[in-house]
């Protein structure tokens, strides 16, 4: 862990401001992502896990500047992505790609597959004619699709096939870093396995670095090297996958989250820690530690001040007063 990180995210925050009322203006602020710091090592997979509304998707998008971060830094190869000029950012985007959750909503239905995959080639490279066709066929082959489908349209394919095409499009410019935002959540189990295997194969063949966002704990356990657990816009715990899933999780939320995933394997089954209540409204988050109203081991201090994310050794970071 002493080499410089591949991607260093510092205090990244995205606040959405909504204004209500004409006369008496009420301003509401949702801190979708609140001072998140992560560093990604190259050729590794950082998993981001959390429930809906915890800001994991916004985090992924803010890193790529697909939503405008309020403040913070994203250092990629020594450059701050968030401070780049438009043209510099455009050039940088070649290195960073994203695959979305719903493959059905990721394409223009009136584009054929050739148009879809060659679009980044047309905007960023001078590949034309047969060279372009050749490249598209090669990309399709890389994701396990036959090259002769390139004149067909998105509606002719199943979800798993479309997700392969989305991956091919993301690979078109030889990126170094990919944000994978719930890439298998819309797929059936047997197809999910095909896509996960493909992503792992591509990672080792092309030396890719992944930020893998999901709510599915078994998928994150399978694919990531380290896992960041998010709750209401903040990272509450970060550790290696191995340690986190083998009883070394310390944050009460992480423990409850890990225990609530239903398991098929009887050896992996455990008692569920059932949390009371719901995720609070992010417009009006609880004071102090935002998890304290649901926390089984809340103390007086938890409702007063916000616990900071601290490194407690061996790359284990946690934001909780229980751990000193």
């Amino acid at each position: 862990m002493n080499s410089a990180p591949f991607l260093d995210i510092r205090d990244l925050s995205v606040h959405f401001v909504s204004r209500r009322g004409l006369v008496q203006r009420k301003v509401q602020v949702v801190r979708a992502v609140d001072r998140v710091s992560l560093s990604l090592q190259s050729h590794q997979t950082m998993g981001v896990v959390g429930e809906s509304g915890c800001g994991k998707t916004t985090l992924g998008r803010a890193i790529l500047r697909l939503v405008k971060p309020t403040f913070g830094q994203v250092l990629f190869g020594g450059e701050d992505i968030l401070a780049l000029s438009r043209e510099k950012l455009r050039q940088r985007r070649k290195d960073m790609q994203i695959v979305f959750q719903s493959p059905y909503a990721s394409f223009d239905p009136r584009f054929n597959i050739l148009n879809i995959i060659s679009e980044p080639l047309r905007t960023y490279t001078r590949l034309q004619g047969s060279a372009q066709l050749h490249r598209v066929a090669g990309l399709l082959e890389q994701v396990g699709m036959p090259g002769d489908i390139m004149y067909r349209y998105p509606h002719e394919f199943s979800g798993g096939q479309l997700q392969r095409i989305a991956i091919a499009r993301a690979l078109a410019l030889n990126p170094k870093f990919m944000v994978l935002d719930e890439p298998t959540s819309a797929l059936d189990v047997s197809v999910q396995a095909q896509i996960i295997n493909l992503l792992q194969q591509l990672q080792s063949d092309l030396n890719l670095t992944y930020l893998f966002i999901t709510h599915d704990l078994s998928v994150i356990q399978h694919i990531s090297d380290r896992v960041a657990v998010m709750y209401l816009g903040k990272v509450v715990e970060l550790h290696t996958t191995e340690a986190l899933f083998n009883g070394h999780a310390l944050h009460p939320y992480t423990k409850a989250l890990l225990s609530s995933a239903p398991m098929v394997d009887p050896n992996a089954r455990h008692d569920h820690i059932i949390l009371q209540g719901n995720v609070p409204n992010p417009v009006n988050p609880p004071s102090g530690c935002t998890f304290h109203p649901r926390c089984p081991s809340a103390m007086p201090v938890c409702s007063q001040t916000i616990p900071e994310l601290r490194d407690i050794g061996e790359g284990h970071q946690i934001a909780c007063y229980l751990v000193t």
Partner: protein
Amino acid sequence: MNDVLLSVQDLEVRFDTYAGKVNAVNSMTFDIRKGEMFGLVGESGCGKTITGMCIIRMLPRGGRITKGRILFDGQDVLVMNKEELQGLRGRRIAMIFQDPARSLNPVFSVGNQIVRIIRTHMSVSREEAHQCSFKMFEAVALPDPERIFRSYPHELSGGMQQRIMIASALSCGARLLIADEPTTALDVTIQAQTLALLAELRKTQNISILLITHNLGVVAETCDRIGVAYAGSIVELGNTDDVLFHPKHPYTQGLLAALPRPSSRKLGLHSIPGNVPDGLTVLPGCLFRERCSQVMEICHRNPPPLTDVDESDEHHRVACYLYSQGDKG
């Protein structure tokens, strides 16, 4: 076997579409006993939701039941007339769906909706219905019933909306609850709450539950018995532990191997090649044979019948020629 509450026998459903006849359900066979939680698992398009809808005769337009019987408490649901069905739906069988937000009417308060349901099915006064709904809110552990009663669906979270759905489904004393993907739209911590609630209600209200889901983890932890469906047919049926830990059908085996688990990290995931057949083209023989690694000559001829895995164990049944002695080609 008089403790059987619901018996689905050789159900077949066809849809007439512009593209042709679609075989949505080919051969669905299972029993649900009194007080039992039965899981119907399968991937999208395997006919599990359509089967649930057939049980309360709410098939979408264009669908026809072309074969089979559905017996509820000994009565054939498929020959019931309108009045008989009205007495069946809600009063004896209730159903909840995947997305609670879409099952509730956004322009009425939830109290208004539940009172209406109760008064449609039972001849009680508004006041009695009101009391009854409070009792149901309590049964599903909803706090502050007064406030909940007056609130509108958008004011409640997904987990609370699903509790409202469960409360109204059970408000008229249904004996069977069909829960179609009840936790798929919910977060894992809320899913755990909801599943714990269903397991508790099954005991306190003494009901049977048909849990329709694609999530093997969910059935593993909650159901007594499960049926695995593939392309409209049951391929394996038995006690949950028998099916999940000693799977016999190559599809069940493949599905379980495709699940990410701690030990799969280094080995890579097993995946089943190919895709589910589309239902438009009717293959003779076993519908899984195109994706099966142990396909034999006989698999191309006739669909395999559901048979006992071995003579000693009559509760574990599988539809595969690998296990039917004597028939092996």
